[in-house]
């Protein structure tokens, strides 16, 4: 990018926008609150509307959302947060009719992370859970075939963990 660093014409936009009180988001928040009940707490982070549930309550929440018309699992993945010693399971759930979207979050401990599968709710979760197992080492209980999907069976470690050290390639860490 060749952005001029000294610009006097138009100043750059404010990097942190104020969360706009979008009526569609408020309606979604009410609807999801009804569907998930007390089991879920809204997550305050800006951006995507997100709800946090107990790891044990994920299949139940998934079934309720699916029954309420959220029939499209966009993907599921994890976010490694070593500072809080947890994996944040993230299920991106949306709909085939109006495309309304939400993230379902569940915290897992970084050591021996295990969670129940949602393959029974959306068939498409199968490969996504295998990928999350591959990249993070999270075990999905009840998964029909939990194997690595992108990497080799004998690959050491799980690359998307923040503490992953690449032992196969000669990685040069540069200061920039």
């Amino acid at each position, binding site marked *: 990018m060749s952005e001029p660093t000294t610009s006097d014409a138009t100043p750059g936009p404010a990097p942190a926008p104020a969360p706009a009180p979008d009526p569609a988001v408020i309606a979604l928040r009410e609807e999801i609150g009804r569907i998930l009940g007390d089991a879920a707490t809204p997550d305050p982070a800006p*951006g995507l509307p997100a709800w946090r549930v107990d790891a044990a309550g994920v299949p139940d929440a998934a079934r309720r959302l699916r029954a309420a018309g959220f029939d499209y699992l966009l993907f599921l993945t994890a976010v490694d947060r070593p500072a809080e010693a947890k994996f944040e399971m993230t299920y*991106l759930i949306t709909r085939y009719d109006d495309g309304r979207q939400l993230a379902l979050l569940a915290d897992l401990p970084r050591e021996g992370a295990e969670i129940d599968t949602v393959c029974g709710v959306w068939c*498409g979760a199968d490969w996504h859970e295998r990928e999350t197992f591959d990249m993070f080492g999270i075990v999905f209980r009840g998964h029909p075939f939990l194997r690595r999907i*992108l990497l080799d069976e004998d690959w050491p470690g799980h690359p998307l963990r923040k503490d992953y050290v690449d032992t196969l390639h000669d990685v040069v860490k540069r200061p920039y």
Partner: protein
Amino acid sequence: MELTPAAEHPHRRTTDAAPIYEDYFVNMGPQHPSTHGVLRLILKLEGETVLGLTPVLGYVHRGVEKMGEAMTVLQFTHLTDRLDYLSAHMNNWGWALAVEQALGIEVPARAEHIRVIMSELTRISSHQLWWGVLGMDLGAFTPFLYGFRDRELINDIFEKTCGARLTMNYIRPGGVTADVEEDFAKDVRAFIDYFTPVIDEYETLVGGNIIFQERTKGIGVLGADLARSLGCTGPTLRASGVSYDVRRNRPYGIYPKLAFDVPVQSGGDSWARYLVRIAEMRESLKIIRQALDTMPEGPVRTKLPPIVKVPPGRWLGRVEAARGEIAFFLVGDGTEKPWRLKVRSPNFSNLAALPEIIKGCRVADVVAVLSTLDVVIPCIDR
């Protein structure tokens, strides 16, 4: 299902946990002309009939998501082209949407129009390539030449404006790299005038061929419920009777202002997928014409701050690429690098349908069904 330990498994990395030794296993790929890339399929056969199929992924896994964590959000734009290289503009756009949401920036109207025109040209060129390769997969060489002949015109338009023909890297957060060439509108209109009758020719040449119809009708039927449950998108989903298109169901850019139809077929077979893609090319031409007519003058890029920092939070950019919905999930932590980013590949979910719909077909049909699912392997493996 009983799990077999990996070391004892006769075919490592298969999803078939209980192999029957009397059955015949055939490896298709990873180097096979009709797999459109480095994809390995393990076929379980009885004679010519496919009893089961297991895709083996990861031959071109590059760790794009891990690489993204070491790059700034603007640098990562360059890698999005290399996912589904036939939808390069749409991939750029999806990532740009995620970053623009995170930074809360608006895109100038002219840039929005250019984005739509470029994306729809990409969709047409992707479908042209698919159409040509579909013909070749089924034993007809002529469509391949026709498809590439017409694709060249779009590549020339891209080359003039973007300087590249494959990984254009043109749409980026805040707008587009630079304004279009002065001949752009003239070239695109010339292409529309040329290509509109050519689609009829395509339909006569391949779709009107009785051998082609016999090879695709009723083959590889994907039901609507299964397609929804698997998270299929794009023409693959729309051929199964589900009318879902991100451009209409969750509009972005200037798509709400444009009049276009979303072609839907109810058959769910290879023939239906063929019809949907042919119809989509016509719709794309319609969209391009409207966007050209209403394209305003003005700037093409919003000025970004010198250092782009992603505020903490989660953002999702969703666009309709040529093969379905591609989404970029961005988790920020206040630095200029993403804390985590995830690419939701349409091909990954579409390919998951293959093992289900191929059972009972013949070996030769595997090629036809794979070709009408139209997967691009680098997007699956990331």
